[in-house]
């Protein structure tokens, strides 16, 4: 039965550079996970990429000038995309327990990943895997390689996952809520590890999370999403200290922190996030927005346009309807 179309992601534009961390932050239904899946071409059918391009610049081989490939054009099951997935672009998923097979040792799985992307034999692959384990700070790596994922604690499992993601020296690491499922002290370790590894290898990280604290500590640039649209983009300092969009501002004000006054009511965003299927016409945030302008926000969808030096925002407070039409 055909109930209709959900635009899980409706227009997102990111420029990702080596050595930088790009944070995508948003709540349920904002489209951050689907964006990540689209990048890796693992969107489940009947979902599909309808339009747009995803250009990956790879180091040129054999004297060519540059090598740019549009991931949106590749066959998701084809050899080229399969080489890229895990190779140039690697994923650190949210639930390492779910991502590892419970019936194979972690070493077995990492070696499999290495041999899929690099032309090495079993012994060499194991040496590489060992070195990755050491790089991510797993103690007794020789022993751990031959253990199963369920024998490792949450923190070690996540490190093993990171080791696997890094084993083929990716250009881009996509971290999908990598610390949501671990304790706060483990989270601190994992975040520092990611930063250190990134500095050492100059990889880019796309960091997806709903946790504003983690974004503040990890990201260089931030994209704020809501119900499939980009609400705001800017440097992490801009987003936290000079937010433009009413949603961003309201979100920042509503989180309890060690520094807010305890036991008084927190400022809240009224209402709740609609189901993506029931996305409001016009600006998706308008039903909850304190700055809602009837006739504008409920009729037209704002476009992401510059506001300030390096920021962009989708909001009619900053750009007129005519400009966006």
């Amino acid at each position: 039965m055909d109930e209709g179309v959900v635009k899980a992601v409706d227009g997102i534009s990111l420029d990702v550079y080596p050595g930088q961390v790009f944070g995508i932050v948003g709540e349920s239904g904002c489209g951050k996970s689907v964006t990540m899946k689209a990048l890796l071409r693992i969107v489940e059918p009947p979902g599909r990429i309808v339009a747009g391009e995803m250009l990956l610049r790879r180091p040129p081989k054999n004297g060519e000038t540059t090598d740019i490939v549009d991931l949106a054009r590749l066959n998701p099951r084809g050899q080229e995309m399969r080489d890229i997935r895990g190779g140039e672009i690697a994923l650190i998923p949210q639930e390492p327990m779910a991502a590892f097979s419970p019936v194979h040792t972690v070493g077995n799985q990492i070696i499999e990943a290495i041999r899929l992307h690099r032309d090495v034999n079993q012994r060499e692959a194991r040496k590489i895997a060992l070195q990755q384990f050491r790089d991510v700070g797993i103690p007794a790596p020789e022993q751990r390689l031959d253990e199963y994922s369920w024998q490792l604690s949450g923190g070690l499992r996540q490190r093993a996952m990171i080791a696997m993601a890094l084993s083929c020296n990716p250009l881009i690491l996509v971290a999908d809520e990598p610390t949501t499922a671990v304790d706060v002290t483990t989270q601190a370790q994992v975040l520092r590890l990611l930063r250190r590894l990134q500095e050492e290898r100059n990889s880019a990280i796309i960091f997806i999370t709903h946790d504003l604290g983690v974004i503040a500590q990890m990201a260089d640039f931030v994209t704020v999403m809501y119900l499939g649209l980009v609400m705001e983009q800017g440097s992490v300092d801009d987003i936290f200290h000079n937010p433009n969009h009413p949603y961003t501002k309201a979100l920042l004000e509503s989180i309890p922190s060690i520094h807010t006054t305890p036991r008084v009511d927190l400022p809240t965003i009224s209402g709740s996030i609609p189901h993506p299927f029931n996305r409001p016409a016009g600006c998706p945030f308008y039903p909850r927005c304190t700055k809602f302008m009837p006739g504008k926000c409920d009729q037209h969808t704002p476009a992401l346009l510059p506001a300030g030096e390096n920021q962009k925002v989708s909001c009619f407070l900053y750009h007129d309807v005519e400009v966006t039409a």
Partner: protein
Amino acid sequence: MGYVRAVDDINFFIKEGETLGLVGESGCGKTTASRCVLRALVPTSGQMLFRTASGDVVDLAKLNRDQLKPLRSQMQMIFQDPYASLNPRMTLFDIVGEPLLIGGMRHRREREERVAELLRLVGLRPEFMQRFPHAFSGGQRQRIGIARALALNPRLVVADEPVSALDVSVQAQTLNLLLDLQKRLHLTYLFVSHNLSVVRHICDRVTVMYVGKIVETATSDELFVRPRHPYTTALLAALPVADPRVKSSNVELPGEVASPANPPSGCYFHPRCEYCIDRCKTEAPVYRELTPGHFAACHRADELDLKGMA
């Protein structure tokens, strides 16, 4: 095979009308402790003294099922997962009305009125009582769970990570609701959470647990500003601050959370503690009162000057 001491000789109290936070990471025993308080789990030893509505003090650990039954209405629970904690085949009326039915309210009309009142109390429209949980968002489901917990006018409410599974923008609404209900209905909360920011916001006093033991208890203000246990300091330092200009502390707690199935010797925290001395490896520290109302279990509590939040 052996025993796991999920909760290992703990001692705490909650004052009527206050919110006590129970904080700690995986395996610390906070969930087990909270379930014990409600007698959902039976402790192997110890006392749980509860002052009933009539003023008597009873030991919940010693009561049998018949003795416990009339008291159950006085202590209720709010669960973490708003999707798992509501039966999808029951309407809101069934869910929120079930405790009333069990409590002896046989007339449907009477239950409908009370359910309507409870739904209004948590900010939901009474007309919703004919609907099923799947029609509602996470935040709304959590409100349904709260309404259910309040059905029999409890005095003590155990809230087990009540906002952890909710979106950020909804957490604030739910916390405000809990604060509001506490004032209106004179509730006492045992608030279990791993999220220190939330705990700071809602709790009067806080107890920190590690691998089954309590390591520190103090008022919320004192715990956050002047902690007396190295683990508490580490927890505070690990919290990512939502301000890019304030970089998290560079001090990283080494190692992993110890396993309750195989805890270290002496002080359970000693392998990860930067202040560890020989005594810590062999002798378990005594949980004692350092200043009035401020307890900690650390051999060096008197000499250490630990960092809190500014």
